[in-house]
């Protein structure tokens, strides 16, 4: 028992959990034919069958039931505001399964030359809103109202001590749907994690229909014809969104230190970390000199790297690896798309730089609050 808990605790360390997710992710949601080949060879496509749904749900429920026997797990999962997130784990898995299941079925139908499940022969296949839709809506509404009543009677809304500005709780957490942003604060300065990246997430989401100019797969579940766009959306939604929230909720404790789900939240847990900036790496460690007084001279390396990353990488990719995509999308679409993507990629990049080299900032100009 204890051994299993220790195993889970060490497996959920962000380094291991995130690395594992990154490695396995695109084999689960293949973005290209090559990944798709391995996806099928590794039999990951069985994940979207009925048997897998049953097995994984049983495992998830068993894990939660087992976990609730542990006081530390119970304390964090049964915190009233965290209950919806436990629900979210089940819901996200179920609906991901449901959409992928239908997508794979439709892909098979298309391959066999048959019309997709949602196919309809207008106007013969139309149904009347009254009563066919209205009663579905009505039943949904009644059941959902009943569910809300039971939830509300069964679980009291959280209310802590009266507000006290002089006594900050440890950890202070944002509302759960913003915990992904708070998690980014570990790796980015607030102007990035709190302002620029959230704005780009909103802009990027709004821009999806304008960037994705693939006409296939409109109005029905499908995967095969839209591999790349679905794989990327899934990555943003499941990893950068849901997983970060789950980590922020369940695995972040006092001092924003990392704690396994069965670990006691010890506020004295020590994480010896001295993070260094790129300029210190180069001047102090590499050249054995002091930092130059001139800000520009000091940060020139970081500035060059960032400029190269944002200015040279996109055209380079357009010429080489992403040539087909560039031709298909055109200059405007491609530019917006690639800037959004490589900006999103700075998060995993900075995560790994932090974990491997304790790198704090690539550009550090605290004099002007400009740290990246």
């Amino acid at each position: 028992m204890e051994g299993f808990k220790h195993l889970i605790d060490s497996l959920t360390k962000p380094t291991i959990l995130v690395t594992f997710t990154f490695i396995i992710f695109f084999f689960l949601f293949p973005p290209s034919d090559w990944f798709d080949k391995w996806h099928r060879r590794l039999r990951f496509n069985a994940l979207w069958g009925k048997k897998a749904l049953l097995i994984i749900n049983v495992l998830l429920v068993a894990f939660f039931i087992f976990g609730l026997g542990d006081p530390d797990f119970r304390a964090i999962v049964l915190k009233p505001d965290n209950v919806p997130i436990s629900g979210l784990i089940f819901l996200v898995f179920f609906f991901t399964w449901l959409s992928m299941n239908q997508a794979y079925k439709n892909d098979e139908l298309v391959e066999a030359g048959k019309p997709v499940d949602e196919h309809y022969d207008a106007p013969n296949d139309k149904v009347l809103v009254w009563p066919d839709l209205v009663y579905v809506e009505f039943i949904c509404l009644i059941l959902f109202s009943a569910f809300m009543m039971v939830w509300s009677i069964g679980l009291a809304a959280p209310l802590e001590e009266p507000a006290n500005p002089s006594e900050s709780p440890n950890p202070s957490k944002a509302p759960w749907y913003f915990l992904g942003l708070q998690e980014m604060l570990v790796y980015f300065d607030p102007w990035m994690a709190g302002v620029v990246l959230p704005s780009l997430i909103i802009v990027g989401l709004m821009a999806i229909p304008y960037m994705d100019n693939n006409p296939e797969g409109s109005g029905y579940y499908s995967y095969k014809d839209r591999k790349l766009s679905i794989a990327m959306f899934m990555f943003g939604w499941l990893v950068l969104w849901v997983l970060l929230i789950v980590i922020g909720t369940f695995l972040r404790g006092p001092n924003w230190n990392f704690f396994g789900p069965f670990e006691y939240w010890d506020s004295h847990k020590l994480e010896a970390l001295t993070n260094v900036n790129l300029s210190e790496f180069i001047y102090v460690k590499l050249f054995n000199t002091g930092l130059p007084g001139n800000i520009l001279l000091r940060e020139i390396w970081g500035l060059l790297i960032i400029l190269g990353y944002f200015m040279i990488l996109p055209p380079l990719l357009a010429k080489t690896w992403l040539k087909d995509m560039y031709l298909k999308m055109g200059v405007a679409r491609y530019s917006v798309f690639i800037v959004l993507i490589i900006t999103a990629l700075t998060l995993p990049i900075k995560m790994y730089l932090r974990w491997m080299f304790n790198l704090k900032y690539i550009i550090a100009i605290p004099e002007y609050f400009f740290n990246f």
Partner: protein
Amino acid sequence: MAEKKGLLKRLAEGQIWTSIFRGGGVPQSRRQRMMVVLNSVFLHLHPVRLPKHAVKLKFTWCMGGLSFFLFLIETISGILLMFYYRPTIEYAYPDIIDLAEQVPFGIMREVHRWGAHAMVITVWLHMFRVFMTGSYKPPREFNWSIGVILLLLTLLLSFTGYLLPWDQLAIWAITVGSNMARATPFLGHEGPGAALLAIGDINFVTVASDVRFALIGGRFLGEATLLRFYVLHCIGLPFIIMIFMSVHFWRIRKDGGISTPV
């Protein structure tokens, strides 16, 4: 001899019923069933007929409808909460306690809070469904963008509501959130570029004039913050979200209803 009519049928054909529900009668023929939808201000959000997959739960997940329904639940429970709640530092917290302990059937706050969490989740799942069915593709691109704004407004509504109980959970969560506003580029006093907005020694973006100050109505969380969040939560954001919701629903109809395979 005329056949004997049941009570329900006589009611449905009587003066009161026919005056309330235009057309009257029990809709039985195809034409009458179409007229029910056309003649009702609420039902005519819907088209009269739709593709058969549009009534299947496994296709729609009903998440868009549930999001709207949750918005209504939040509005109604929120109005009830406003009867009891006063947005001042002195009263806010005791009013919440009273609400749970003194008010008969005091689960309105629970309905409101869990409904808010549920709404965030249903809106996300709705977005996910729309993505997976490729329903954002032409001609529905713009409506997807409106939907993203609705998602943002849902989060902001939830965020502003989080402060109102004025307990430790509330103020520290909002502190974490609003502290990020300090670092807004150019507009926050600790943001990159803020120092550039100055003439000589006079800074325009200071702790008492930046975007965080505008958000929380002061240099620290306090009375003004509570009032600001209360007004935004109860009037400001619902007003904005209703405008976007109207456009969202209207565009669904205008863009051809629920998406179908071409």
